[in-house]
């Protein structure tokens, strides 16, 4: 705590209690899932994929402060890479891990290619251009029938297998996703706390002043874009492998907006916030089954309300994994 006495966090006791509760909830869900019926496991898998997407997009929006409205483009790159390399479409059947690697590299390249022209734009223009780019990708995928299967998509994708173990049943996909989310989350968490992460924060605060202290903002922003694109692509690959089917319908503008919404509602710049946001996004329609249409309506209203009342999102930025761990050990 600072000596100045301007402290905004709740008293240590309450904070520790909340931390313990959250950790307990997460642990319970993680442990219980394999024993749930398949339908529920699929819901959790969906949740995990959105968490992964959120972690990726959060690097650009939450850490660096750039509004990317075309994130599904990278998601699509990853998904279609799998669809093309592990299906009857081109009659290629590469192993899953290799495809993940290829997709990651392709995602990174796409991120850099998009980033180079786009990153010198002002914030609002950046948002529009990324939106346009996302739409371009979707339209192109929709129309290049011979490669991507057009609106019908590509079906009968191979089952994934990692080191000889087949990953097809929901519970197997669950473990794959859990491990991936954990590893990626850990990586990104450490990235945020590294010097690059601090540079991203400086760019978010005041890009020009950041240049003034010697930060090559173009490169730093490119790094953010590339990393987020890579993660998006990896998420896409796993998504395709779990669904064993891809079509342009999964990669619409609304999807991009929903992922943004998820981050904003849950808590910008905060991995726990992403978990919260994803939970709201995914679990809400499950609970309000009859009101499926109302889900997005509700999210839209929630977004507006939160932006006005609590722009930092439901989970405050400072409530990160460190707080959880500290809460647990009382440091």
């Amino acid at each position, binding site marked *: 705590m600072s000596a100045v006495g301007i402290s905004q966090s709740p008293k240590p006791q309450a904070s520790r209690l909340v931390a313990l509760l959250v950790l307990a909830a997460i642990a319970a869900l993680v442990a219980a899932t394999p024993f749930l019926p398949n339908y529920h496991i699929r819901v959790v898998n969906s949740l995990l994929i959105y968490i992964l997407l959120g972690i990726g997009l959060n690097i650009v929006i939450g850490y660096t402060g750039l509004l990317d409205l075309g994130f599904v483009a990278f998601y699509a790159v990853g998904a279609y890479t799998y669809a093309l390399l592990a299906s009857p479409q081109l009659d290629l059947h590469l192993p899953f891990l290799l495809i993940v690697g290829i997709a990651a590299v392709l995602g990174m390249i796409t991120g850099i290619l998009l980033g180079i*022209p786009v990153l010198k734009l002002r914030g609002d*223009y950046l948002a*529009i251009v990324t939106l346009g780019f996302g739409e371009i990708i979707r*339209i192109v995928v*929709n129309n290049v029938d011979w490669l991507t299967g057009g609106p019908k998509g590509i079906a009968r994708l191979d089952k994934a297998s990692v080191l000889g173990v087949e990953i097809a049943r929901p519970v197997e996909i669950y473990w794959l996703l859990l491990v991936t989310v954990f590893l990626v989350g850990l990586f990104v968490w450490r990235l945020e706390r590294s010097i690059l992460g601090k540079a991203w924060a400086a760019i978010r605060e005041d890009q020009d002043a950041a240049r003034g202290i010697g930060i090559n903002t173009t490169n730093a922003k490119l790094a953010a874009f590339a990393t987020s694109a890579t993660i998006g692509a990896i998420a896409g690959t796993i998504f395709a492998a779990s669904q064993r089917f891809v079509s342009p319908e999964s990669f619409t503008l609304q999807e991009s907006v929903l992922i*943004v*919404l998820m981050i904003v509602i849950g808590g910008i710049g905060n991995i726990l916030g992403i978990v919260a946001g994803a939970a709201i996004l995914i679990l809400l329609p499950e609970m309000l089954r009859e009101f499926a249409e109302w889900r997005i*309506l509700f999210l*839209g209203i929630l977004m*507006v309300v939160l932006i006005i009342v609590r722009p930092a999102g439901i989970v405050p930025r400072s409530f990160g994994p460190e707080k959880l761990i500290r809460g647990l050990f009382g440091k």
Partner: protein
Amino acid sequence: MLGTLIQQTVNALTIGSIYALIALGYTMVYGVLRMINFAHGEMFMLGAYAAFLALTLFVGEIGAIGALGLTIAFFGAVVAVGFFGVGIERLAYKPLRNSTRLAPMLSSLGVSLTLVTGIQILAGPQPVAFPSFFPTTRYDFMGGTVTSVQIGILIAAFVLMFALYTLVNRSRMGIIVRAVSESRPTAQLLGINVNLAISAVFFAGPLLGAAGGILYASYYGIMSPSMGAVIGLKAFTAAILGGIGSIPGAMLGAYILAFVEVGGTALLPLITNGVLGTEYRDVLSFVILILVLLVKPAGILGEPVSEESMVYKREF
């Protein structure tokens, strides 16, 4: 050949007029609030639905839709959407006037989603047939066909744009709006009613957008809850092309974009030997958008950001 040219020109002018009506809304809002209103495309959509609602009410009440009924429905709908726009601004954007630049944009994303899904729930997600507001007669003009719908759209659009131009440049409200667009803090210090100016913009912009929506739905005979999305983006492209914040710029950009689109979709299959077809029309506008922002973000009639403002204001 001349006939086709005439035809395509009229097509371009027609669609350009519709883009212009919507683009004006984007540019005016950007002018006063420096914000991209992602929900503006939905004003376009709401205009169509509001007019449809008005018409069905009339048919119920009066039994027939005469010219009077159509006119009342048209004006009723656009005015209603205008007031709705003012309401949205008060609720969703006004509280964020002193927040980050990102916040109102995110809020408008939320508003956009809410409106689209709201209409989907109220009126169903599928497209609905929309009656034409104009008599459907075709005229032969030097070998090309011009429909009275197109003529009607051109007239309506020009009248509205002329009205806006007069208001902005010759009325007191216009001066106030322009002052607020130049510098809101200065306008406040001068005692100008900034809230009024902003509300006026959020009345006029959605009104014009709604008019565009009714005209568009008349032209294509169809409306759907998601019709605002792509058109909104194209109109935004037009506004940027012409110079965001500039009213003549929005109109100029709209017509240029329309001509490029019409010309492009006609030429594209020819140039690429059928590889790229008319489905890529939308891609064309996005590509133009990206190119303009990369090469000359200020647009044709816009002003580039000055060096000094970079040092003394935080960049967004």
